[in-house]
């Protein structure tokens, strides 16, 4: 027999209200814009899926999406192995542990736009240390004119800013490995590589799953760094979906297409994250764990 107690709603309602105002209502407003056209005066006309079709067919959207995918791909390929490698190098105990942890946490505490500004100045050939040294070494480095240099700078920025997140996650996974595992491997005479492959990597699987997901979602939503660095340039070379979206909505004031695009953008992130998650957890389930 279950007794219903309606007082529980009192506890839920504040949360519901908060979520409604912060997420549901804004989202529905976006949905509202995405299916209507307006010529001002608060007059709206129903246009159905027209904006969605326009966005999905436009080359501008395709290019920005490709840039996003390329960026996330490159960032993951660099940050995940690098993060694991750095975590493996960190000491497991002793006074250096806290020093390392603080050093690793430092970049994470810096706001995005500050990171952007730091690197923007750092990379300038006239006053920036990096730009000046590269120029001095005879390299023609200029992120404001050369798309490749702009990409290089943004990726470097992201790696600098976020690799430590992967490091910290991996480190927490590594510290959780009991010493007895390493002892057993030593007694067996297992090589360093075998220890990594057979003991450490399997143990890191779960935290890596989280690291990849977080880094993917975050990098896919990149906005501030390219915005601060070149505002999406040179040309359109660093115009990612988010930058494009802002230009469309606030620059051109095309609210309908911008709303449609932001919904598509949102669905893409959701879909990709879901795919990532399913693939990674299904390999986990294949191994199964009824015993533990």
């Amino acid at each position: 027999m279950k007794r219903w107690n309606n007082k529980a709603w009192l506890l839920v309602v504040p949360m519901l209200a908060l979520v409604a105002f912060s997420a549901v209502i804004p989202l529905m407003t976006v949905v509202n814009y995405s299916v209507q056209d307006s010529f001002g005066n608060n007059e709206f006309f129903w246009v159905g899926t027209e904006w969605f079709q326009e966005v999905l067919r436009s080359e501008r959207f395709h290019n920005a999406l490709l840039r996003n995918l390329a960026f996330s791909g490159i960032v993951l390929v660099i940050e995940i192995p690098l993060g694991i490698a750095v975590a493996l190098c960190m000491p497991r105990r002793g006074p250096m542990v806290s020093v390392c942890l603080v050093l690793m946490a430092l970049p994470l505490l810096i706001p995005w736009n500050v990171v952007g500004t730091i690197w923007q100045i750092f990379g300038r050939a006239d006053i920036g240390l990096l730009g000046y040294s590269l120029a001095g070494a005879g390299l023609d480095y200029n992120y404001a004119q050369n798309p490749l240099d702009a990409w290089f700078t943004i990726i470097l920025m992201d790696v600098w800013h976020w690799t430590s997140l992967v490091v910290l996650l991996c480190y927490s996974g590594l510290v959780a490995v009991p010493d007895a595992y390493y002892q057993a491997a030593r007694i067996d005479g297992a090589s360093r590589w075998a220890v990594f492959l057979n003991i450490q990597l399997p143990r890191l699987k779960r935290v890596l799953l989280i690291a990849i997901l977080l880094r993917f979602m975050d990098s896919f939503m990149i906005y501030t760094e390219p915005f601060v660095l070149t505002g999406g340039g040179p040309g359109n070379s660093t115009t990612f979906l988010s930058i494009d979206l802002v230009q469309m909505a606030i620059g051109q004031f095309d609210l309908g297409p911008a709303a449609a695009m932001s919904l598509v953008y949102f669905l893409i992130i959701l879909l990709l994250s879901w795919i990532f998650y399913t693939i990674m957890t299904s390999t986990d389930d294949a191994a199964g764990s009824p015993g533990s």
Partner: protein
Amino acid sequence: MLELIQVNKVVDGEATLEDVNLTLSNNAINILLGPTLSGKTTLMRVMAGLDRPSSGDILFNGESVIGVPVQKRNVAMVYQQFINYPSLTVFENIASPLRVLKVDSRSIIKKVQRAAAMLQITDLLDRTPEQLSGGQQQRVALARALAKRAKLVLLDEPLANLDYKLREELRSDLPKLFSEQGAILVYATTEPIEALLLAGKTAVMHEGRVRQFGTTIEVFNNPRDITAARVFSDPPLNIGTVTKMGALLNLGEYSLPLGSQANDLTDTEYQVGIRPHNISLNRDGENSVEILGTVTVSEITGSESFIHFHFADCHWVALVHGIHIFGQGEEIQLYLNPETFYFFYRDGKLAQAPEDSIR
């Protein structure tokens, strides 16, 4: 034969092993018995070669093995945690030390099959450790040690994390499995009962020292000192201070008759050790003495009861047959048999143990 000669181990200025002298052979299981942090694991690590002793020597069949790296020593170790390679199948887990030794694959299959058969995990060979229960995981770890055919097998509380039934099953198998290989078998445990069940030889460890080493039953019956007796007693040994005066023992305000074993002791102050099962609720034997105790807690273990009580300004425990429930603060009659007392001098050395027929 493994000989440890004056082995010391100092970690961060603190002695974790002090003057350990042991000679272990392969004709009986060697048990290291001691509470946690008594140095059992440290001693095993030193024996294995994972750690270097700070001083002293370790001889294996007469030759010093100090400085020989662990992977060249042909040792196997099984831990309290179930240590297996999580990503490898059970087969590969058992085969892993053989692969490192570059054994050819046909004899690997044969050896793995044999070890798996002995531990009854043949039908699990294709699974990964995560799919196994705790007992099965530990069997895999044991099979790995078995397949390696190591000359020195170190088992560090291997059954501590298993449930009661599995523990009994594996405990009776273990010595047989490894003795067939002629390996020196070392088994660390915190439980006196486990040591008694395994028989063999026992080294009683306390605070980094081996207090006593000998045949398990001998060490149990004739502890060298009060520390060894305490370590080797579960439930804990009851200890009281007595003064012997002629044929009488003064224990608090009580005067007890002297047991026949203590006739030759000089008149002075002693500490007596009384095993909990020698305190009873009924008079047994003509020498039994009635005392009055105040119950603090009584616990039931199934067919027996623990009665914690206060007597002569000390906290005592009696282990009695049957189920008895007493309320806190209740005054009850208990019986002590002076024939079963262990006498220790004030410095802790054993003065007199009870006679064999009495214990």
